[in-house]
């Protein structure tokens, strides 16, 4: 029976038969698993080598009780923490929950070690097989705890790096309204330039983050999938009723930038928690200046429209406020795989607005030729260059 014939037949039969056909391969799979598990036909491959072991340090907490680390096991068999070294000394520790650690699950290790403020420390787990898993704390500072004052202070930083620059950029709106076609194209291209910078920057950061996460999360794939999914989803939603323009396009840009700022907040918060970043005035101001173009970018599609006032507030909050939330989450519940995931989603969203803004330009201008016009090329390059230069203040 050829394939078309079979399809023809099955169309005539009741649905129950279709279900039966589906059951057959599933049953076979079940039998195969049961057989492999019980009869162990692969035992000849067992060279009695020790099991594969992997630990990933996901969080480190330093406080007055010493050091605590959250570790995720990724072994081929449940893993056992036999001993813990801190700075090449065996130190007493407690494990919560105790016992062997199944693949994919996490435990907290509490080590009452007198860590020293501002200095480096190294934690080394020794498993029952004698394998070791090292984790370095480059600069020991107390881990922030969620007190009200801390949350306020972080919110303030979030507002400065996220909301403030977007608001400043949007305040250019009245001034920019007067520009002609060339000026309009320049500003739109500037927006694409800054978005392109963010896309590359975010993708690289997401991949870097994913490298720090447990292997079983398949970090790079996670980032690519999250990016592709958010891109396609946003494209589909955006194109529901034709390509977005005007205020709608501004909102999509604000969403993409909001996701980016969320990721940026996560990174700042995590650096905060890890003690690896002292958030100096310089750094915070750097972020603020770096992000000013975001507001201009959001304003670009609505220059020829007359949106209501509330929409400016909404755009500002959508683009900037996620930085606050990101900071909170990043500093209090940081894990590399989540950062990678969110950065991936953000990258997808940025890609979507790049496509949409470019489409908008070609549609409002003289088709594809617009993209090669002097204002557009200059705008794009100025956008990228501005982002690159201001990023110098915030990259470490």
């Amino acid at each position, binding site marked *: 029976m050829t394939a078309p014939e079979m399809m023809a037949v099955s169309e005539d039969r009741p649905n129950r038969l279709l279900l039966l056909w589906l059951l057959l391969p599933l049953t076979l799979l079940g039998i195969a698993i049961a057989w492999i598990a019980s009869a162990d036909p692969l035992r000849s491959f067992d060279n009695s080598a020790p099991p594969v072991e992997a630990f990933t340090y996901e969080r480190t907490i330093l406080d*007055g009780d010493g050091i605590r680390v959250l570790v995720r096991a990724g072994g081929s068999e449940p893993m056992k923490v036999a001993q813990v070294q801190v700075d090449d000394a065996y130190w007493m520790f407690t494990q919560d929950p105790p016992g062997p650690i199944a693949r994919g699950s996490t435990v907290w290790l509490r080590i009452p070690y007198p860590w020293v403020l501002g200095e480096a420390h190294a934690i080394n787990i020794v498993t029952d097989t*004698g394998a070791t898993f090292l984790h370095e704390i480059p*600069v020991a500072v107390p881990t922030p705890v969620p007190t009200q004052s801390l949350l306020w*202070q972080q919110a303030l930083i979030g507002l400065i790096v996220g909301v403030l620059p977007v608001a400043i950029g949007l305040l250019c709106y009245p001034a920019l309204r007067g520009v002609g076609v060339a000026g309009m194209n320049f500003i739109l291209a500037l927006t694409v330039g800054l978005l392109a910078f963010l896309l590359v920057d975010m993708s690289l950061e997401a991949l870097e983050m994913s490298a720090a996460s447990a292997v079983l999360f398949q970090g790079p794939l996670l980032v690519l999938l999250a990016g592709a999914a958010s891109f396609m989803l946003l494209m589909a939603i955006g194109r529901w009723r034709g390509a977005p323009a005007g205020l709608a396009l501004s909102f999509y840009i604000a969403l993409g930038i909001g996701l980016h700022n969320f990721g940026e907040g996560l990174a700042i918060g995590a650096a905060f928690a890890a003690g690896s970043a002292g*958030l100096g005035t310089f750094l915070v101001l750097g972020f603020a200046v770096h992000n000013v173009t975001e507001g201009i970018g959001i304003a670009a599609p609505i220059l020829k429209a007359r949106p209501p006032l509330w929409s400016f507030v909404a755009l500002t909050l959508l683009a900037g406020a996620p930085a606050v939330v990101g900071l909170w989450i990043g500093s209090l519940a940081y894990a590399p795989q989540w950062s990678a995931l969110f950065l991936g989603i953000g990258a997808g969203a940025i890609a979507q607005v790049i496509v949409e803004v470019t489409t908008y330009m070609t549609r409002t201008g003289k088709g594809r030729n617009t993209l090669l016009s002097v204002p557009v090329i200059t705008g794009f390059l100025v956008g990228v260059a501005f982002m690159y230069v201001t990023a110098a203040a915030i990259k470490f």
Partner: protein
Amino acid sequence: MRQNEPTDTVTRRSLLIGGLVAAGGTAVLASSAAGQQMLEHGMGAMPAPDPVNPYAAPSAHEGAHGQMMTVGRVDPETNGFDPTPMLTEWDLGTVTTMEDGRALRTFEVEASDKEIEIAPGVMFPAWTFNGRVPGPALRAKEGERLRIVFRNYGSHPHSMHFHGIHSWRMDGVPGAGLINPGEEFVYEFDAKPFGCHLYHCHALPLKRHMHKGMYGAFVIDPDPELHPEFEAVAKSRLLGTPENASWQELIMVMNAFDTNFDGANEFYAVNTIAHAYALQPIRIEKSRPVRIYLINVTEFDPINSFHLHANFFNYFDTGTTLTPTLRTVDLIMQCQAQRGILEFSYADHEAGQYMFHAHQAEFTELGWMGMFDVVED
């Protein structure tokens, strides 16, 4: 010993110093104290089984090591050897008289592969002599004929290379007593010179066969009749004499284990088990003098050392003299295969716990630390 390579520490440190002042940093660093100020905020999420304050000096009941200690105990039953009896356990072989009237001492040693627990919960795939690490502590008397029947039940070629005086044919190197799995070889030579020696496998690569556990003590007691000028000293060294019986003799083999096979040791110890004598101090009767046969077999690190707390000792390098080669010291160094005899006494001390350890602090903190429990007798 491990060399940590700080990757981005420098840049991050400078960042910290440069920027800690402002914006949000203040929320974290209210003072320059070592983090205690975070205590009152309480982390909430975690159960707190023990209220240990890491910044407080350990109290007496916590022991001299405080929190700096391996967690748990090694079960001597599963290992088949116990570090405490091992201190005084000599393999004397069997003695017969040869036709010329000389004593013939015969030892039987078997090599085998064995998984041993070298620290609580940490298993190590060792190669052993007689199923233990270190191997049996062989002891003979100067001038005896020695016969060591060696059988290799291991999975690799092995040998016994004795530090002593013998023919090249008995040297335990390839072509002279290095045997394949399933084979047998008999090493035969005279027991000389007297002293504190060792034997080890000399299969290649040597590093691997050493650190996998193939070594042991080899002590030759001086024959008092051959040393009339120091007869009393020689008698005190000769096992079985009344003079010797007053001494408390201990065998200590300083060794280490590279459990992750990266060419650096994770665990250091005396007689294999990290922290064994810290958790179970060695009982010493105050009035009886102490003699330690100390041997270093540590691989990868160039030297090891022995430091005695609150006391000084006389040292006989390689044990081949009857007068000390170093007097009144509290620390000696040994490179690999170097060894010697330590003699000291607690007769004038207050009873109590006295520490001893390597004075490479790193070795100490990775397991090479112990206590003497000096008691009134």
